[in-house]
């Protein structure tokens, strides 16, 4: 593998760096966890990100697409993506063998407000693949557990098979310092003993105190409106609710305009916005 580096302009944010897939861990029939490392060792050493940031991953011949970084920010030597196959690039990814090379650029955008969360209570609400960009925040909190107040995790998936990170869910469920609740939309196979229904039903299963609490939310587009309504009911102020938005993205650096919500670019001003900010932009939620 070679890369013509000699003549690269330093500033080009469209520039790729090559990374190797070191491990593929299946999560569900259509979702895999990809552990990658930069081919260039120094690059890997220097790599850092804020939970909630994303990168553009490319597979030459198949295009590129944005994916949230999914590992703990404290992990060294490699980092993870968790990707569901829904189309051209993601299907091709699924067929890749270990040691394959992908292109990466980023990390881009604003992540979760980790600094602000210090010493505060945190509620995390994830729907489906939306748990992916939340995972680095959860892991970071768990790894520095004393720095934060209570941690409540609400997670919903379409069906039991689609639950991600099942090993970790088990651990969260059993940790005393985490309150974890989950639900599935439906359970055709009858293998689920827990809640059935959309994520918002979990608000009845858990008590959230609005005091000193921050909420981090990520899920499918339709989820936000309902979750926000619940959080408003509880009395959580808008500037303590954060959400990560998904939009179509083609450049990641504020040029292609696909990701505009109001005057904000999801790629650069987001993907994480406070609800307060998001509310000022038409069509955001």
């Amino acid at each position, binding site marked *: 593998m*070679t*890369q*013509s580096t000699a003549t690269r*302009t330093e500033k080009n944010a469209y520039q790729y760096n090559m990374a190797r897939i070191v491990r593929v861990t299946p999560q569900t029939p259509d979702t895999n966890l990809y552990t990658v490392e930069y081919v260039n060792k120094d690059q890997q050493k220097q790599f850092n990100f804020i939970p909630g940031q994303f990168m553009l991953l490319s597979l030459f011949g198949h295009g*590129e697409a944005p994916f949230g970084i999914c590992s703990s920010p404290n992990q060294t030597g490699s980092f993870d993506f968790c990707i569901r196959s829904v189309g051209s690039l993601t299907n091709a990814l699924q067929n890749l063998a270990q040691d394959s090379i992908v292109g990466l650029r980023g990390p881009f955008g604003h992540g979760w407000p980790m600094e602000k969360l210090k010493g505060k209570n945190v509620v995390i609400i994830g729907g489906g693949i939306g748990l992916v960009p939340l995972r680095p925040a959860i892991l970071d909190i768990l790894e520095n557990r004393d720095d934060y107040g209570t941690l409540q995790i609400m997670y919903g998936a379409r069906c039991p098979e689609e639950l991600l990170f099942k090993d970790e869910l088990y651990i969260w469920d059993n940790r005393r310092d985490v309150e974890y609740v989950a639900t599935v939309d439906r359970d055709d196979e009858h293998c689920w003993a827990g809640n059935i229904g959309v994520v918002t039903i979990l608000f009845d299963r858990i008590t959230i105190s609005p005091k000193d609490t921050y909420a981090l939310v990520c899920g499918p587009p339709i989820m936000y409106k309902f979750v926000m309504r619940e959080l408003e009911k509880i009395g959580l102020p808008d500037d303590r609710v954060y959400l990560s938005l998904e*939009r179509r993205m*083609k450049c990641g650096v504020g040029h292609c305009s696909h990701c505009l919500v*109001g005057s904000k670019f999801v790629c650069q001003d987001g993907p994480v916005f406070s609800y307060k900010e998001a509310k000022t932009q038409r069509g955001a939620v």
Partner: protein
Amino acid sequence: MPPKKKVAALILKKKDIPKLVRQLTQVLTVYGPVANQSQFKFDTITDGSQLRLDYDTTILPPKKFFIPPTEDMVTFSQSPTLTIHDTLAQSDIESLWNGKRFLVFGVHSCDLAAIKFHDLILTQIYPDPYRTRRREEGIIIGLNCLLPCEDSFCKSAGTLHTTDSADLMLTELDNTYYVDVLTETGRKVVEFCKILFSPASTEQTKLVKKTLTQRNQTFPDPLDSFEEIPSQFDASYEAEMWNRLGRRCFGCGACTMVCPTCFCFDVSDRVELNLKEGARVRKWDSCQLVDFALVAGGHNFRPTIPSRVRFRIYHKFWIEPEQINQIGCVGCGRCTRACPADIDMIELLSDIQKGGN
């Protein structure tokens, strides 16, 4: 950049234009307005006689030279290992004036304003390196409009007398062109073709001023207080007019393709039939097209034609002013001229001004 020393205004004889073109084409690729069936377009000029400086407007704006309809960003090949080559990094051909390689002749004020607009909007967060590079490679010779063209509203939009982004600015004066030198590059162009330019007399300078003042008065001004439209748009957001327009609009994207300020693009990969080579290509996209705001899982943030019609105006008249304090429309009227459903921008904007119902 301003010229180093003040250069007096110059005169270029119309009959010398072919000579000028001949000289310029020796060192640069020259583009200019040419006849295109019943209309005009910017195209490569090899001979001065092709130039139609009497053109009203072109189908596509000169944006196509700075953001081409399709452009390879990187090329890649697998033979047998993967090699990636950034098209930005292609070896610099040494050319005359610090990498200047092409010249666009006869750009009207509205288009000059649009180029300037792109300079701002596409560097908000981070300069678009591909466009920036083409901007650095291009020279622009502007041309003052003396006659209004149909469907335009440049005077209302405040772009009628823009000289922004031009290196030289021409004004027609009987058998000659009055030439304002606006930048250092402009000065170098004049220097290069010295013998074709002569100093302008004070009378000529006066005459040009008078001509332009007169023009400014006579040009149509169909829209009052253009700068108010953003707030008026805000008020009309839920108005009935968007449904009405949506019933007529085809969502065909013609308006955005021809718009000098539109710049949205799509990125995808092209693979050659040998399955070994390919390129990452960016291509003009349009917010009017159904897939523009579609994401994985099938959710479409603007699923209907009315929602997309409104978004185009939203972007130009609200989002962009919010971002860079400038309205994203220069009043060239191309969208009106291109719309197969006969949607008229002046009408649309005055509807907004009237509250949208």
